[in-house]
Each structure stands twice: as structure tokens, then as C-alpha cells.
């Protein structure tokens, strides 16, 4: 009897302790996951650019600091979003509509690391930035390809460019191009990078699909080429633009974005545009613009141009693409870039080396803009419609194995070497 009572007490204490441990663990997990948003604000600075990135762990990065006259707007925006320290400041290139307010930003906030491309510029705005940095005893790191910035362990920040030095007259191509990846969402900041810089990035092999594109050079027609759009395949695009006499954004760029079915936001029409990512989906503070009011001229004429440059084959095939393939993890991600939901009944994903074929389940619909991951190997699992399980067997040859996506008519819709 006595022994039983002792045992019961011991059991009760053990259970209590176990409960305590479980509760603490749950609470920890809950708290850690709860503050899990990456927030990207394209601040309305008029004609210019300034983007605030707030990471899930509370750190902050500022990419560009608008024209000189937008200093108050930027500083107030940061303060109202509880930014006291800018952990990383990136000035994409020295044009005055990107660095104009940077001196006042540097004077106002504590700055962690400071990045700029190493290109000399003689304007008063640039000199003021250098002097503000000197007064704060900051040093400057070179913004260039392959630079990584580690502010939050859950978010990858990598520079794609500039990949080389350009002519001094060609400041736009010096732009620091920054990719921010959080979970399955990604944001590309391009500054004013022109087509030459876009081509150079494509040729160095750094360009990967991104969810959100900051349209380069305020929508100039000399940026955002069809080649670059084909490689980046954005679902969303943000144009930071204000009143200007340079024709930004151009009808040509708008029609290219339209032909790629990109949802576009514009700071001149919508004010500050804010994207919030939980690592899976992105929510916006405003609705994307309708194409009918995107351009004063109307995109009808240019739509025809876009259609005439597309090959007939591209027009017929549904725009569903393989966007990534991880041979080791046995995961292939497929995205619907089309304007409509696609019924993938009868479609196949093929591992070319082993000629193994995954047949999509009957009635499987991939909604427009959505992705589906096909899993195989020991970690394969099913969470339809986001994740489909092929088999627990290993499919992909780790030494290289091309993937092909075929539609119900057997046509190769997308492939990845």
C-alpha cells in the first residue's frame, strides 16, 4: 500500500514535469513561428526608389534611399515601423533618385553594414553620402555578385550583380541586384539594371525564378527584357515611379509584363506597396492594378506586338513550368504561370535518365500562380494540392538527371536539364 502511494506520487510528479516540458516546448515553437513574416515595403518616394525589408527576426535592411526631397518620407516611414537600426544599407548605384536621402538616413539611424558598388560619382548627393558615412565612422563594402548578407538565419540574401565593371556613363548597369529568399517566396531588387546587366547575369547563371520583381529603372523600356522575364518568371512586379519626363514606366515594359501575366503594382498610382510573406504565400496591402488603367495610351497596340514576337508553339502550350529540381532531396517544384487554372489529369513528370514516369492524379488542378511539389524517396509525402507523393523509392539520379513535364497530349511543356 505504502509502496503504491509513493509510486503514485512519483508518477504524478513525473507527469507534471513532462506536461511542463511539453507546454514550454509548444509555447516556444508557437512564439518562434508566430513572428514569422518577412515584410517588404516599396516606399512611395515619387520618382525614385526606396525599399524597406523587415526580416522575421526583427532585423531591417534598406535598399536605396529615394531622391533628396523624399528624406522626410523615408525617415518617417522607418520610424513608424519601429526601425531604430538599419542592419544593412544597400545603395544600388549612385544615381541621385536612389541615394538622394541616404545622407539624412545615415545621420538619423544606426547603420550596421553599408554596401555600394565601387563606382565613382561626383554629384553633391554622392559626396554628402560619403561624408555622412565618414562622420559615423562607417566603412563601405563593395556591392557585387556573390555577396551574401546574413541578417536572419531563415532568409537568404544574395547579390546577383553587378557581375563586372561597366562604363562610368552607364551607372544603371552597376546596380546591385539583390535576391531575398524566404521559404518558397522570393523578392528581386534590381535598382536600375539595364538590359546589358540583365544579359550578363543570365550568362553567369545566377538568375533563378523569383516570386516578386522590382521592375528595374522605374519601368524603362531599356530594362526588363523578355529574356530576363523568361528567366525570372515573376508572379508579381512592383514599379516604383513618380512624375517624370523620361517616359517611365514605358508602354513596352508594361506590355512585356502583361504578356507574361505578371500582377503589377505601381507606387505612382497606389502609394507605398507592402508585401508580407509567411514563407509560403504573399499578401499585399493593395490589389494589383487592372491593365486597362496601367498606361495612359492603353496596352492594346502593344499587346499585338507581344503576340507577334511569340512563337506559335509558345502560344499553344500551357504555361506550366518546372521551376526547381533537387535531386538529392528528391523534390521537383512545378508552377502554373498561366492565366487560368490547369487541369493536369493525364500529365506526366519524367525522370529522363531512368525513364521513370509520374502520372498526375485524375482531376488534379494546379491553380494559376500556384506551385506543386512532387516528392519521392524516403522523405516523400502527400499534402495535395501543394505536395504530391510519387513513390518512397529514389527516382532522381544525383549525378544529374533531366526532368520533363509532358501534358495530356504528350507535348513537352517544360524541361529542366
Amino acid at each position, binding site marked *: 500500500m505504502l509502496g503504491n502511494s509513493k509510486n503514485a506520487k512519483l508518477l504524478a510528479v513525473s507527469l507534471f514535469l513532462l506536461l511542463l516540458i511539453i507546454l514550454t516546448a509548444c509555447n516556444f515553437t508557437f512564439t518562434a513561428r508566430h513572428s514569422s513574416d518577412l515584410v517588404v515595403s516599396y516606399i512611395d518616394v515619387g520618382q525614385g526608389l526606396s525599399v524597406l525589408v523587415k526580416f522575421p527576426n526583427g532585423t531591417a535592411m534598406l535598399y536605396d534611399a529615394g*531622391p*533628396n*526631397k523624399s528624406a522626410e518620407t523615408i525617415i518617417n516611414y522607418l520610424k513608424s515601423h519601429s526601425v531604430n537600426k538599419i542592419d544593412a544599407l544597400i545603395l544600388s548605384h549612385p*544615381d*541621385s*533618385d536612389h541615394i*538622394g536621402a541616404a545622407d539624412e538616413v545615415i545621420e538619423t539611424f544606426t547603420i550596421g553594414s553599408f554596401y555600394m558598388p*565601387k563606382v*565613382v*560619382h*561626383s*554629384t*553633391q*548627393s*554622392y*559626396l*554628402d553620402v*560619403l*561624408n555622412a*558615412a*565618414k562622420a559615423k565612422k*562607417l*566603412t*563601405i*563594402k*563593395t556591392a557585387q555578385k556573390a555577396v551574401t548578407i546574413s541578417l536572419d538565419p531563415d532568409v537568404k540574401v544574395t547579390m546577383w550583380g553587378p557581375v563586372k565593371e561597366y562604363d*562610368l*556613363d552607364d*551607372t*544603371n548597369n552597376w546596380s546591385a541586384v539583390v535576391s531575398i529568399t524566404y521559404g518558397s517566396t522570393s523578392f528581386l531588387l534590381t535598382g536600375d539594371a539595364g538590359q546589358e546587366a540583365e544579359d550578363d547575369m543570365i550568362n553567369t547563371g545566377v538568375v533563378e525564378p523569383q516570386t516578386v520583381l522590382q521592375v528595374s529603372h522605374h519601368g524603362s523600356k*531599356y530594362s526588363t527584357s523578355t529574356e530576363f522575364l523568361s528567366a525570372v518568371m515573376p508572379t508579381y512586379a512592383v514599379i516604383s515611379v513618380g512624375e517624370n*519626363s*523620361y*517616359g517611365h514606366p514605358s508602354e513596352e515594359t508594361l506590355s512585356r509584363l502583361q504578356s507574361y501575366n505578371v500582377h503589377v503594382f505601381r507606387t505612382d498610382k497606389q502609394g507605398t506597396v507592402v508585401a508580407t510573406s509567411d514563407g509560403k504565400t504573399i499578401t499585399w496591402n493593395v490589389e494589383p492594378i487592372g491593365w486597362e488603367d496601367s498606361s495612359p495610351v492603353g496596352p492594346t497596340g502593344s499587346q499585338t506586338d507581344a503576340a507577334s514576337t511569340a512563337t506559335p508553339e509558345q502560344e499553344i502550350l500551357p504555361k506550366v513550368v518546372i521551376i526547381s529540381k533537387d535531386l538529392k532531396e528528391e523534390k521537383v517544384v512545378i508552377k502554373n504561370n498561366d492565366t487560368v487554372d490547369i487541369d493536369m489529369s493525364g500529365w506526366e513528370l519524367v525522370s529522363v535518365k531512368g525513364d521513370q514516369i509520374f502520372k498526375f492524379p485524375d482531376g488534379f488542378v494546379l491553380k494559376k500562380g500556384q506551385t506543386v511539389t512532387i516528392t519521392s524517396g524516403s522523405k516523400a509525402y502527400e499534402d495535395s494540392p501543394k505536395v504530391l507523393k510519387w513513390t518512397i523509392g529514389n527516382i532522381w539520379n544525383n549525378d544529374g538527371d533531366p526532368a520533363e513535364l509532358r501534358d495530356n497530349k504528350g507535348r513537352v511543356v517544360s524541361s529542366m536539364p
Partner: protein
Amino acid sequence: MRKGVVDRFENNGDIVVIELEDKTTLPVAKEKFACEVHVNDVVYETECGLWKVDKDETQSRLEQIQKLMDELWEKDE
């Protein structure tokens, strides 16, 4: 007489954007320049409304800024 520094080109080089001394910007058609013009040139407006480049001041300003950059920039590994 207005004076400034060429900040950048717009419209594929047809427009020269000048940052004036008060840090406002002024777009000027390239035809308004009597001679060849580049980014970083110190420029001033003449009485007849054309723009000219001050080569000496351009050079000395560039040197001054390059020196400050060398002082602030971290050395590449």
C-alpha cells in the same frame, strides 16, 4: 548662371540629368551641350542657354571624391 554635375543619362542618352548645387535635378536635352558630355562632368549654363563642361573642375572633383572613397572603402580580399 546655373551650375551642377551630370548625374546620369535618361532616354538612352538623349537626356542629360544634371544635379544642381541645391541638389535638385534638371533634365537637359543632349543637343544643349556644345561638346561631348559624360557622367560626373561639372557643367555650367552659358548666357545663350547652352551648357559647357568645366574639364579642370571635373578632374579635381573626381580626384577629391576618389580619395574619400579610398579612405572609406573596405579593402577587397
